[in-house]
């Protein structure tokens, strides 16, 4: 799908006019609080759709592997680079008695073996990066009906796009990753994600539904209030360039150039020495023509949602993700990962560190709302939420999730 022409409609209600099928009515709270709804989300979305699980660079050489826990799909997957350079993925389950092959140390476990194998630590069964069972201690004591060749690891669909590794645990045939991403891949595919690999990550487990967490980042309406501390008068509350790509969506967030925030000597110096903060005016040297196509001076960053639960943000020399992993209907693992290019001078390093602290503060402000929102939802006092037009990304998510759940 080709990138759509940016709208010039600025009047209230513009996104509802552009996407009338999304409706304008209040949306029910039930999908956020109902455990049965979450079970359907697991079955119809997280066990059937492509999920972003790793960057290719997290598997730098043959024998590198990562285990990603997927509570939302009742499994965890081993993603491993073989001696042939190919990345494949398997359920982390041994063919012997079902133990996890790689012992997990958390939601993400990393390892490397020069032989390109993983070994179950329970009884020592060894599998290669093609998933084949290559060694069974005391193999001669198994019965004649045991067939080593047919007892490899259970493979899951695995494919890559722009340096991102995806899996799909549906055991049947699935839509290709290319078709799943559709126009979203065209929109972001020209950005050099590999160029920025210096940054920081945070994660925490939140007592809220995954959509509460995702929604909190998917609009700029909250910035004036929630981010009055970290980004005062920096961003506009209205979003621009909204585009829907199947289940995915994107928009751009704009700077307030007419009423710029009060400058500080430190902030001015940091922004002068480095392009590392979303609050600084962006250039466009690293951006593909699909991003900020009109070279608008107030363009700050692209805010997108890679369905189902990744928010991908792209700006000049910066990109970052928020990923919301459902653990239960009322529990979500949030992971924030922020990437810059490697600093080339000490002043740039200092500017980067300042930008990262600023971003951390903003994320703390964001995540601080989520458990409160969810507790209030659980009270049952409010049966509906009321979304305004600039919260169109949230409305789109509600509609898309509901379509999958009721498919």
């Amino acid at each position, binding site marked *: 799908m080709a990138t759509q022409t940016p709208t010039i409609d600025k009047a209230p209600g513009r996104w509802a006019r552009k996407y009338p099928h999304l409706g304008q009515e209040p949306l029910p709270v039930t999908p956020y609080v109902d455990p049965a709804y979450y079970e359907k989300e697991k079955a119809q979305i997280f066990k059937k759709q492509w999920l972003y699980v790793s960057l290719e660079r997290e598997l730098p050489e043959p024998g590198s592997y990562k285990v990603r826990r997927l509570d939302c799909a009742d499994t965890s997957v081993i993603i491993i680079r073989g001696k042939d350079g190919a990345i494949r993925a398997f359920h982390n389950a041994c063919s012997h008695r079902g133990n996890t092959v790689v012992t997990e140390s958390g939601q993400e476990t990393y390892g490397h*073996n*020069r032989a390109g*194998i993983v070994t179950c630590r329970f009884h*020592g069964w*060894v599998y290669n990066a093609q998933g084949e069972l290559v*060694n069974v201690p005391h193999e001669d004591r198994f019965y004649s009906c045991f067939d080593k060749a047919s007892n490899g690891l259970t493979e899951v669909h695995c494919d890559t796009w722009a340096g991102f590794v995806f899996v799909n645990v549906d055991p049947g045939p699935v839509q290709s990753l290319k078709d799943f991403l559709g126009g979203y891949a065209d929109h972001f595919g020209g950005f050099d994600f590999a160029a920025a690999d210096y940054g920081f990550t945070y994660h925490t487990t939140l007592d809220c539904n995954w959509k509460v967490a995702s929604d909190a980042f998917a609009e700029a309406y909250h910035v004036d209030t929630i981010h009055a501390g970290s980004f005062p008068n920096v961003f506009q509350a209205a979003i621009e360039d909204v585009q829907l790509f199947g289940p995915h969506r994107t928009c751009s967030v704009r700077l307030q150039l007419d009423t710029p925030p009060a400058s500080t000597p430190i902030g001015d110096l940091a922004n002068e020495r480095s392009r590392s903060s979303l609050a600084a005016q962006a250039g466009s040297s690293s951006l593909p023509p699909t991003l900020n196509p009109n070279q608008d001076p107030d363009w700050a960053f692209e805010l997108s949602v890679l369905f189902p639960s990744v928010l991908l943000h792209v700006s000049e020399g910066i990109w970052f993700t928020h990923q919301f992993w459902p653990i239960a209907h009322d529990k979500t693992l949030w992971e924030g990962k922020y990437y810059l290019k490697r600093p080339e001078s000490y002043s740039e390093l200092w500017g980067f560190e300042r930008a990262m602290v600023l971003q951390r503060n903003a994320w703390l402000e964001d995540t601080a709302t989520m458990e409160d929102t969810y507790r209030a939802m659980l009270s049952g006092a409010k049966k509906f939420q009321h979304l305004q037009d600039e919260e169109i990304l949230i409305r789109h998510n509600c509609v898309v999730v509901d379509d999958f759940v009721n498919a």
Partner: protein
Amino acid sequence: MTDPIGATKTIMEEKSVQTLCRVGDVPADEPLRVVLPDDHAVSVYLWEGSYFCTDDLCTHGEASLAEGYVEDGQIFCPFHMGSFCISTGEPRAAPCSEPIRAYEVIERDGMLLIER
């Protein structure tokens, strides 16, 4: 039947000097697998400035030891993390229990050699 000159015994025990590789071929941080002319594979190690050589095939799990890790003078098998002394071939860590054959490495004219 007698063998007055002991020829058979001599032939059975005769060792030949076999070339492994050039001195600079063995990286300091990982073993080098070398396949000898009779298809027998050995693993060559550079450890604290000295060269060592053992058979490549683990006596426990049929792994290539050259794909393992050297630490504290031991080669750790990549399959089950058992280990052998790279100098003597004696097993050091379970599940390895049978020794592997170790060879003295001879350095001559820029080449590494063993007798076997």
